[in-house]
């Protein structure tokens, strides 16, 4: 790499970065993609059987961010001192080529259209006073109809398996009847249903809910995507989440985009390149390029570009904006600034049902994106009026392949011991005869939940760590409790011998020690008003118009659905408008 100036720099080699790099090279631009982690090739380290190793994989975090170099600090309340997130637990950001898109599970949703204009919808239905004090409820500034072609494109690139409900307004299958209309079928038929999921399907239907097959970016059959790259049929090996899919069945940037992109001479991927900051001109209106640290030589490198795409993991995007001085940092006291505002998560709890000793759930069989869900209590699909909270949760059995170390450390559940006498008996029963049901819920944004720079702790390169101020709020706790209550009749209809409902408790404090989800969002949100959003509806910085910030960082609220489908659609949406509008006339695409 000798060029000192390229057309575009893409920061981060995950889904968002790979999509933008592909689109921009297609548009004729020279693109350098900078990835701070290692090169990752499925044919090498994802190979069978060495990748089928739980200790090295999900337990020692082979594909995840190495916190020794950089982490975040966390506190629950703004008056608390934040402390470093020293050991990976509550959430697991990826690192290396593919990013979190290499270690994800593969649940591949579109969006609940009501969620895109949640503020407008809540106010229209229940009035402005329905929104709790301190909740920053906002719209995305983009509609489902506008995004539909890009959801469709992403599914075709990912090789997504699923069953539709309607296509072009006509009923086309037994899919999710709450799902929005589609312009085309899924590229592949729905994945097979494991025993636990089929039990959930019939029980949920008996109770009067509307079960559907989870849309999965796990290939239910051999597939060749529009870029000409191939996927193999998923064999339910159970090594999705935390692993690299030796079957080439789980969509990843590594399998679905990069093999095509790497052949383009206008594209250059540089690994072990840690971007320190985006460089701005004197009046902070234009980016001139980036400064990155070559982790091999330990030398700082300046690279200039006309266009800078910030497309790292959600909170790295926000961190980089703060370190670079792009936009105004959010100040919760004054309620000014936008960078770090509306930091959101998801509200996820797991319930467990035990079946008879004759029913084996074979928990090790699974696929990360497969399962059966209901949307009856997601988004605006039910009447919130008498309930007094905003948001909702899909509910599902998503048997993704339970491995023994994680199961053993998690323990048998219920009131059983986590070690010593009685532990093994209970563990055997749980591992062989139980199943889990998740309430995978939304999380709203609040004035005192945000991201900023930590005043004390720094990363290995001397830069301040990002600080998270996050806690559970009453609205989301009550939402979770309500939806989990709806799981109970399903479990009873399954004929479970016993069960334990997992739900947040009143006043529960966010606990960093227990894995919940890696679905972090917000902090650099999209919107229509530069006073309350960082980027416009094309994900272009309001302040520095040749910087686009792509990822779940753009979500104003944490949605009930898994975020990757929405991230991919937003990436294709932004890329389309960069190609068709921005490149012809660089500058702000929306006037502030």
């Amino acid at each position, binding site marked *: 790499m000798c060029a000192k100036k390229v057309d575009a720099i893409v920061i981060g080699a995950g889904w968002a970065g790979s999509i933008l790099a592909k689109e921009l090279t297609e548009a004729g631009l020279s693109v350098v993609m900078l990835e701070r982690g290692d090169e990752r090739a499925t044919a090498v380290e994802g190979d*069978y*059987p*060495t990748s*089928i*190793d*739980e*200790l090295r994989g999900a*337990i*020692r975090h082979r594909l995840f961010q*190495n*916190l*020794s170099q950089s*982490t975040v600090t*966390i*506190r*629950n309340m703004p008056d*608390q001192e934040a*402390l*470093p997130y*020293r*050991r*990976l*637990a509550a959430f697991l950001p990826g690192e290396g080529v593919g990013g979190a898109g290499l270690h994800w599970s593969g649940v591949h949703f579109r969006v609940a259209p009501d969620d895109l204009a949640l503020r407008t919808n809540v106010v229209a239905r229940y009035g402005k006073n329905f929104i709790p004090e301190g909740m920053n409820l906002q719209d995305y500034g983009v509609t489902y109809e506008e995004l539909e072609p890009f959801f469709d494109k992403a599914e075709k690139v990912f090789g997504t398996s699923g069953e539709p409900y309607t296509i072009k307004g006509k009923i086309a299958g037994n899919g999710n009847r709450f799902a929005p209309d589609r312009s085309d079928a899924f590229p592949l038929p729905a994945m*097979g*249903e*494991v*025993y636990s999921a*089929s039990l959930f399907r019939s029980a949920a239907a008996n109770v009067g809910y509307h079960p559907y097959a989870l849309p999965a970016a796990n290939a239910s059959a051999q597939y060749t995507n529009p870029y000409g790259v191939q996927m193999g*049929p998923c*064999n*339910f*090996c*159970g090594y999705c989440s935390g692993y690299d899919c030796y079957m080439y069945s789980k969509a990843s940037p590594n399998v679905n985009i990069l093999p095509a992109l790497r052949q383009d001479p206008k594209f250059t991927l540089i690994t072990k390149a840690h971007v320190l900051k985006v460089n701005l001109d004197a009046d902070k209106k234009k980016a001139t390029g980036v400064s990155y640290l070559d982790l091999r030589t330990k030398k700082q490198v300046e690279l200039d570009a006309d266009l800078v795409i910030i497309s790292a993991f959600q909170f790295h995007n926000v961190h980089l904006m703060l370190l670079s001085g792009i936009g105004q940092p959010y100040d919760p006291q004054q309620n000014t600034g936008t960078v770090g505002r509306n930091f959101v998560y998801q509200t996820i709890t797991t319930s467990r049902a035990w079946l008879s000793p004759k*029913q*084996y*759930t*074979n928990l*090790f*069989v699974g696929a990360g994106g497969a399962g059966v869900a209901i949307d009856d209590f997601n988004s605006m699909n039910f009447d919130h009026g008498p309930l007094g909270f905003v948001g909702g949760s899909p509910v599902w059995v998503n048997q993704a392949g339970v491995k*023994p*170390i994680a*199961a*053993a*450390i998690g323990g048998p559940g219920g009131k059983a011991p*986590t*070690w*010593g*006498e009685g*532990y*093994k008996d209970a*563990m*055997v029963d749980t*591992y*062989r005869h139980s199943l889990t049901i998740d309430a995978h819920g939304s999380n709203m944004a609040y004035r005192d939940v945000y991201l900023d720079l930590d005043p*004390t702790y*720094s990363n*290995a390169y001397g830069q301040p760590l990002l600080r998270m101020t996050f806690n559970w709020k009453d609205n989301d706790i009550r939402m979770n409790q309500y939806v989990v209550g709806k799981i109970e009749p399903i479990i009873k209809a399954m004929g479970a011998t016993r069960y334990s409902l997992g739900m947040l408790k009143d006043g529960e*404090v*966010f606990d960093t*020690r227990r894995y919940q989800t890696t679905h972090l969002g917000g902090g650099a949100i999209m919107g229509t008003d530069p006073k309350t959003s960082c980027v416009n509806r094309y994900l272009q910085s309001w302040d520095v118009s040749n910087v686009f910030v792509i990822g779940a960082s753009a979500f104003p609220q944490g949605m009930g659905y898994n975020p990757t489908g929405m991230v991919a659609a937003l990436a294709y949406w932004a890329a389309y408008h960069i190609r068709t509008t921005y490149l012809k006339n660089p500058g702000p695409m929306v006037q502030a």
Partner: protein
Amino acid sequence: MKIPSSTRRNFTAGLLGSASFWMYGGHKVWADALQSESTQSYKPKYFNHEEWLFLNAACARIFPADAHGPDAALLGAPEFIDRQMDTPYGHGELWYMSGPFKEGAPNLGYQLSLPPRDLYRQAIAAANAYVRDHHQGQTFSQLAIPEQIALLKVFEQGKMALGAVPAHTFFEQLRQNTLEGVFSDPLYGGNKGLAGWTLLGFPGARADFMDWVNQKGAPYPFGPVSISGETA
């Protein structure tokens, strides 16, 4: 991954993996054989003698022998933990270990400056010191089994400190590493004879269930296989 060369080792390992052997066999003889094998054939590289005795006893209490099969010490969990101490994990190289180190609310997670290997060293020494003070100069491994269990419960519920380590932090480290040893691929030194996987019915590295996506609740019929091809 080395395949164990000793025929006797293979034989005992094969038996270990069989649940019926443990339920119905006269397993005392074999337990003794394995005991002598697991504690004598492996020489710890990190832990000293006193620490090693502590670890063997504690692992066996956390994951005890019963009708389902042998304890964690027999399954090689102490060997696993000893070997882990000289990995990036054991040296704390996977964790953010920059200061300042401050005590915080438990929900904000681990805030000690100690990597696992130092945590074990400090906490085991302090635990044995505590036992000597309260049990006439004995060490943990010399206590009767019910006393060991009682003490681990004290640590687990832990208001006390073991050196710089809160007892419950140490206990949880020990519990997690013990279970990692029992249930990880045997290439790391534990899960001998694949007995951990056999207990749960986990088939190991088979990782192909095309025909077993949904067999309507029937048990999966095949035993485990390790990454190296070892079966049980």
